[in-house]
């Protein structure tokens, strides 16, 4: 598994350049042309990334989610699920780094092979950071009318999170 993930990228790069040379493409000039487009792309996404990181980080700083959890604790105790998992589930669509940090905490406190550790692992893998991806991709091409994309993305997240709870329970519960 480890070797596979290490070998994939070098092989991919080798293959692309090999194929380019074989098809008599000027690989160096093409690289420069693409890299220049990449720089312009970075320039276009900078405001979006800065805006999202700023908002998400001050939101995390305020510990609003922790404050709201008090109400839900009895429900979680009843279902026999450690409440520590909830902030992670809530934050997963907003911030990948934040949910990763919480998963790390859970691993430290409960261990990766505990029930909640496995649940956290599945949660982290089940979906991507919807709001960030949406802001980034639409921001890069200056689309402001996103139509039904956010509700559909969040619906997919919700289904993924529910599935993570159910599937972990079936496999490891």
């Amino acid at each position, binding site marked *: 598994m480890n070797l596979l993930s290490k070998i994939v990228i070098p092989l991919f790069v080798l293959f692309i350049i090999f194929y380019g040379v074989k098809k008599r493409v000027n690989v160096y000039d*093409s690289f420069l042309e693409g890299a220049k487009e990449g720089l312009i*792309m970075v320039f276009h996404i900078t405001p979006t990334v800065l805006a999202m990181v700023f908002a998400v980080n001050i939101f995390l700083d305020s510990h609003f989610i922790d404050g709201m959890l008090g109400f839900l604790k009895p429900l979680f105790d009843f279902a026999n699920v450690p409440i520590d998992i909830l902030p992670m589930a809530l934050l997963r669509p907003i911030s990948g780094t934040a949910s990763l940090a919480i998963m790390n905490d859970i691993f430290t406190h409960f261990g990766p092979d505990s029930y909640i550790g496995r649940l956290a692992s599945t949660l982290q*893998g*089940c979906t991507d950071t919807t709001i960030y991806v949406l802001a980034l*991709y639409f921001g890069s091409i200056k689309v*402001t009318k996103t139509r039904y994309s*956010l509700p559909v993305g969040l619906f997919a997240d919700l289904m993924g999170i529910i*599935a993570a709870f159910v*599937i972990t329970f079936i496999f490891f519960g």
Partner: protein
Amino acid sequence: MVNVIWAGLIFIAIIYSFLTGEIDTINNGILTHATSGINLIMEMMPLIVLWTGIMKIAEKSGLLHVFARMLNPILRRLFPSLPKNHKALGYIASNIGANMLGLGSAATPFGLKAMEELQKDNPKKDTATEAMITFLVLNTGGVTLIPTTVIALRIMHGSVNPTEIIITSILATSVSSISGLLLDYFIRRRKRY
């Protein structure tokens, strides 16, 4: 929509921290988190520039087209509005491939490039097209076959079986992606008839 969420996050953060007396924290946060944003950009920039450069070679040699053709049976059903040889399809195929292998940082440049190509024949530049939305739903679902980061962290914390969560992750991500794509499909169909 992103508009509302962005404003909501900031309102809640500032007002809640006033209520709880965490004024110092929020004050510091406002002053320092612009730097966190720039740091993230700085981390992403070399990868984006490198991969857009390398993928340009793949585009010019026709390799991107080969990728797109391999995934054609799936892509044609997901993106009925795109012509068969659309340039975006190659980038979409590469993006899905990179995501599946858990190479998230390599997937982002492909995704950005796909959006750029889709935007080229968008008649209303400020409005998302159906193809863009389907692509985003596919992407936010995060179709990951090998969650590399999670496995690495599990190893770091001394898990006895770090890869045991692969199967549960694949099942959960499939549920997420399929339900997103289904909802997207039904919305599209309802609009047409």
